[in-house]
């Protein structure tokens, strides 16, 4: 055999070794193999360990009676209910504090964010101080701090009363509950119709403006009058078909009304204050990102400052603001899991805490908890992507 052939075989081996595609495949196969081994290793260990501990895997425990009490539930729950019900109760409590927190944090964040841009020096500096203080303290620290302060409120016996309907004590805040009576459905229906009619009027006014250049004077007032006036009228005719269930102290507790436990108050407040600081920065940078030429151009076209804000600055600022804002909402929802530190019965607390300890089904319980948060995250990311494509289509990204 001539030496050249052996030289060629050698070279083709070298080529194979340095071929990008071959290397790519090799790397991928290797990764898969390592992953498969790790999964097998962990799973076989888990199987051995669980057999040794006498734990059976599976989701059968969800049907077992939970037989522990939960301090706050949005749906009916008692000791005979199952662990599946515990999951539902915990998930609803998580969603409750998240939604409350998101609403309050958005309002606070917008207020502080605009305050940062105020031409009043004191307002701007105080807003800056707020942001710098609350952004740079660990959230868990803040939750424990506010919870500690809330516990310093007076005892039930010495509750602070606001009128005869709101009571504040170290167990929580008692507020009246609205009780709907016969006919309140009609008021609700009237409200719905009022809203629809108001929206119709708005569309009509806009079309009038676009086609004939005429404006309807006091359009917002007209809309409010329709949307509020109609249900109010129906309520008047029906002599206000609702009543208030007031909290009344019976011994060491309050009966009636709605009781907001201190843990919820503290958690809500801390999530609001903490996330509000981040939202303030997002709002500030969003407004600052709109080039000043935009509002100058609007002004030279004759738009008043309110219209400039509403029609020119805000739509552009929102494109910058919304994506990080949504990720703050996600953070808030995930951060609500710190409830476990102060005993607010959220999902992590009652399910990953109490249910896990009772059943010992650590793997299933933690997987289910993670799946809950993952589902929220992925849903919102999906919505986010849809929003992004929609604003992008309208006129291109701001930069």
């Amino acid at each position, binding site marked *: 055999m001539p030496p050249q052939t052996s030289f060629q075989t050698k070279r083709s081996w070298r080529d194979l070794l340095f071929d*990008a595609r071959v290397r*790519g495949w090799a*790397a*991928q196969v290797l*990764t*898969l193999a390592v*992953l498969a081994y790790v999964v097998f290793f*962990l799973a076989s*260990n*888990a199987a*051995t*360990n*669980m057999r*040794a501990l006498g734990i059976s895997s599976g989701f059968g425990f969800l049907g077992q009676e939970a037989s522990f009490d939960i301090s706050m539930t949005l749906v009916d729950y008692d000791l005979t209910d199952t662990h599946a019900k515990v999951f539902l109760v915990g998930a609803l409590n998580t969603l409750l504090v998240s939604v409350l927190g998101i609403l309050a944090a958005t309002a606070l964040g917008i207020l502080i964010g605009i305050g940062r841009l105020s*031409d*009043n*020096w*004191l*307002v701007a500096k*105080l807003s800056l101080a707020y942001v*710098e*203080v609350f*952004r*740079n*303290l*660990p*959230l*868990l*620290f803040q939750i*424990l*701090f506010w919870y*500690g*302060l809330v516990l310093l409120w007076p005892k039930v016996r010495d509750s602070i009363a606001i009128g005869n309907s709101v009571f504040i004590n170290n167990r929580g805040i008692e507020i009246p509950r609205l009780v709907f009576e016969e006919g309140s459905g009609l008021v609700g229906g009237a409200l719905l119709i009022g809203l629809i009619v108001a929206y119709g009027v708005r569309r009509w006014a806009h079309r009038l403006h676009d086609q004939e250049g005429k404006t309807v004077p006091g359009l917002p007032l007209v809309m409010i009058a329709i949307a509020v006036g109609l249900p109010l009228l129906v309520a008047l005719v029906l002599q206000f078909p609702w009543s208030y269930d007031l909290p009344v102290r019976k011994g060491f507790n309050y009966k009636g009304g709605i009781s907001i436990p201190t843990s919820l108050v503290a958690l809500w407040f801390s999530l609001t204050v903490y996330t509000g600081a981040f939202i303030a920065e997002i709002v500030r940078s969003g407004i600052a*990102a709109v*080039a000043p030429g935009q509002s100058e151009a609007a002004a030279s076209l004759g738009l008043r400052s309110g219209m400039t804000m509403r029609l020119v600055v805000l739509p552009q600022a929102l494109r910058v603001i919304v994506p990080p804002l949504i990720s703050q909402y996600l953070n808030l929802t*995930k*951060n609500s*899991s*710190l409830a*476990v*530190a102060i005993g607010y019965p959220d999902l*992590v607390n009652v399910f*990953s805490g109490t249910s*896990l300890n009772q059943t010992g089904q*650590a*793997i299933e319980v*933690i997987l289910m*908890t*993670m799946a809950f*948060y*993952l589902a929220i*995250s*992925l849903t919102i990311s999906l919505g986010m992507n849809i929003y992004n494509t929609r604003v992008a289509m309208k006129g291109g990204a701001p*930069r």
Partner: protein
Amino acid sequence: MSPSESVYPRGEHPDLAPPIREAGAAHWLRKNLFSSVGNGVITVLLGAVLVWSLSKLLVWALLTADFTGDSLKACTSAGACWAVVTDRFAQYWFGFFYPSEAYWRPLLAFALLGPALAPWLFELKRFSGPLKVFSLAYPLLAYWLMHGGVGLAVITTDLWGGFALTVVIGVTGIVVSLPIGILLALARQSELPVIRLCSVIFIEFIRGVPLITLLFVASFLLPLFLPEGMNFDKLVRVLIMVTLFSAAYMAEVVRGGLQAIPKGQIEAARALGLGYWQTMLQIVLPQALKIVIPGIVNTFIGLFKDTSLVAIVGLFDLLGLTQTILKDVAWIGSFVEAFLFIGLVYWVCCFAMSRYSQTLERRLDTGHRSND
């Protein structure tokens, strides 16, 4: 022709002093605090609230406060009782059980952290090279100082606590999560589908769940998944989770930088015959990382704040330790003072880091971006 133009050549007239209404303290006040009636009212109201609350705070925290004592009862004044801080002062920094004769060891490790970080944080004119070598050796040195062995008495990790533990978790997480995060970001940009998919799943999974559930995995699940006899101590388990958590966020920050590098850079490197790793390490990453340094520092701040979560799984970091102190009969009721103190410690650390990130942002902003 006006007289001034006849005296001075065109365009060289010296600047005149601004009109009296447009300068000085009175002008500043009018412009910034009392520009309109509404603004004036807001200024007066806010100012009054501010002065009132600050003076109250000053009286409570300093003027009528007690600074020493061995329990809350020892404080007799009307104001704050800082005895909970002064009496246990060393424990806040070193934990309950770290032997006091060895306090110099974490102190020295902490002091050496400065020179170890300096060459990476600042542009040093001298000693940059030797200091970088030192910082590579630093993790081992710090571990040796804190933990002992080889000539030093061994202090096991369950004895660590307080601010020292907070810094250990924070610094370890920061140092280890950066390279992992870079690798994950590269994997997510990779052309190999399996690698990319693995990275995407990992990043999105970690970012989709709260850190506390991962810490639960560390304390409940990890022992279950390891063979009998093979069990790390709790601190290591927690460190792994904190690091992985932080790495996923780091990966997204780095990815932002990678996406900002023009494709031409990679193509040029390829055209010069550089391989994948050469392209990444010598061309792409140096540019990408420079852009995202502020984002990286922000992730570090988040990680530092998140170290407090280890208190929930029973480690005695600064926050967990303080909660334990406050359960002591002698200190029940000293909660506000103790929390204000550790709050200040946390705040100074985070604020310093965020200030550093802001200066860096200004220094790195060399004006290449179009709108800012």
